[in-house]
């Protein structure tokens, strides 16, 4: 009721302010531009390669795949990282000391990361359209985007929050990138998954990265390209199923783990982390 309204009102305000801040902070702009530059560079060099068994450009296939990867990274890595940083520097404790502060904080983060993802997406999409040929979004494609993008957030953000609650130290968070990069390699983002051994394909299909890449390809590529996917189909039902499973897992775990993490926040916990951070040279 009113607490929910307060959380939505304060959270949207918070997310909006923080989004504006990232867009006016020079160092933050890099976090938008750098991935876009790297991606577009990669696609540029792929322009003469073809999807195996077709005459379709590999670069054109990679662009939507990496949109899917971007969604997964935003939900898993960015959410977790912001949570760890905010916990270490006391942002979360301030939220805890404020009435409805935690709810406002969470809504604010969802708005912020949703906005950052959208902006990052546009920064990659618009120049990408000039760089590759053959992207097309028909009515069905729009429909796919309409459910897939919000659903990707539901499937990944709670998991990201769980990861961010489990890790305590921002300086070890970088380790999470190693399995993430491994996951990207086996999820058919930069090269079709069909070229990998069967058991690797099976592992890749457990995680959301593969399905988000597939879903984005289904939205942006002509339907004839479905022929080179596994089972020669876009597999929307399976995409929905696997993402739902991750969403349920995340939505069950996240409230429990977030609550446990929040309960442990106190002035002395933040002070202890500050001491630890100060003991790292060069930070």
């Amino acid at each position, binding site marked *: 009721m009113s607490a929910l309204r307060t959380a939505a*009102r304060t959270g949207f305000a918070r997310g909006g302010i923080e989004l504006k801040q990232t867009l006016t902070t020079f160092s933050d702009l890099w976090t938008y531009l750098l991935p876009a530059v790297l991606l577009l560079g990669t696609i540029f060099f792929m322009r003469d390669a073809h999807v195996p068994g077709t005459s379709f450009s590999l670069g054109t296939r990679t662009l939507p795949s990496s949109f899917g990867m971007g969604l997964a990274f935003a939900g898993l890595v960015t959410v977790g990282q912001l949570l760890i940083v905010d916990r270490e520097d*006391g942002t979360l*404790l*301030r939220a805890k000391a*404020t009435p409805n502060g935690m709810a406002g904080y969470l809504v604010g983060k969802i708005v912020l990361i949703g906005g950052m993802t959208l902006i990052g997406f546009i920064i990659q999409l618009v120049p990408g359209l000039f760089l590759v040929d053959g992207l097309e979004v028909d009515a069905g494609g729009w429909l796919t985007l309409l459910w897939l993008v919000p659903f990707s957030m539901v499937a990944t953000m709670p998991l990201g929050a769980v990861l961010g609650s489990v890790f305590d130290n921002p300086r070890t968070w970088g380790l999470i990138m190693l399995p993430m990069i491994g996951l990207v390699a086996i999820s058919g983002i930069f090269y079709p998954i069909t070229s990998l051994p069967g058991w690797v394909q099976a592992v890749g299909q457990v995680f959301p990265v593969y399905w988000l890449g597939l879903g984005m390809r289904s939205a942006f590529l002509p339907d004839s390209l479905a022929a080179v996917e596994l089972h020669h189909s876009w597999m929307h039902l399976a995409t929905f199923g696997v993402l739902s499973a991750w969403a349920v897992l995340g939505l069950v775990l996240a409230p429990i783990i977030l609550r446990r993490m929040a309960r442990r926040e106190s*002035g002395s916990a933040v002070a202890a982390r500050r001491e630890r951070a100060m003991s790292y040279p060069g930070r």
Partner: protein
Amino acid sequence: MTGALVADLEASADERVIDVRDLRMRYGSKDVLDGVTFSAQRGEVLALLGPNGAGKTTTIEILEGFRMRSAGDARVLGVDPAAGGERWRARLGVVLQSWRDHGKWRVHELLHHLGTYYSDYSTARIQRPWPADELIEVVGLTPQRNTRIAHLSGGQRRRLDVAIGIVGRPELLFLDEPTAGFDPSARREFHELVHRLTDVDDTTILLTTHDLDEAEKLADRIIILAGGRIIADGSADQLSRQVEGESEIRWTRDGARFVHAAADATAFVRELFKQYGEGIADLEIRRASLEDTYMTMVRDFEAGRAVSGFER
């Protein structure tokens, strides 16, 4: 109806804002708090003093609702802090020692934003939140109104911390070592701000400090914690009377300096003049300061504990 009831509750002046009985906190086999009992009335400023590890921060964090107690009874604004809801939270202020949170936010932006969380909790008596510009002026940050928080100096940041703590016009304010890192003039300004809060707004304040001078200046009552227990509770005057208060008397006679400690300084000086009369010069009497009192109490406590530990 409920609004009138809430206003009525707020109005009862003898309401115990803090009421703690036999508070205990145990980590493993170590008792951090070992039966702490005290209370605070509305408008009272209470200082918790004690050596490091005495249990000050644990006590304050239990009362803030940030930490679960092991045993004992605690009421803060009439509510168990372990089960306090958002309405209860809105009546509290917590001044946190900030570090680098909200670095990209501007001073006015953050205070205004945090204020909006409190707007649902205004009452007939207390208009929440404190308007950001007014609050910025109160803590002396007007020139930094639109500065990014990352660019504030240490002292300015601490003043912002205080502003954040009081943006909801709290009825009870927690201050954990509020002036650590303040320069003397910032400290004086902060003390004036605390006086204003208690005089004008009738705010109850619980503060911890290492600065005995600060405790003496700000607090109506001082509680000294040591080893997880309260070893003294009273005004600075009452505490110094509890300790065998020996005043220090200095004088010169025929160019020579003398120093003497006496429990009854007046009697001693009377005798001194009777004996030497005009020969006495540069007379100085220094009563036991809070610092002396504190050091004596903590030392006695630790000596007592050492003995009882030996007996066991």
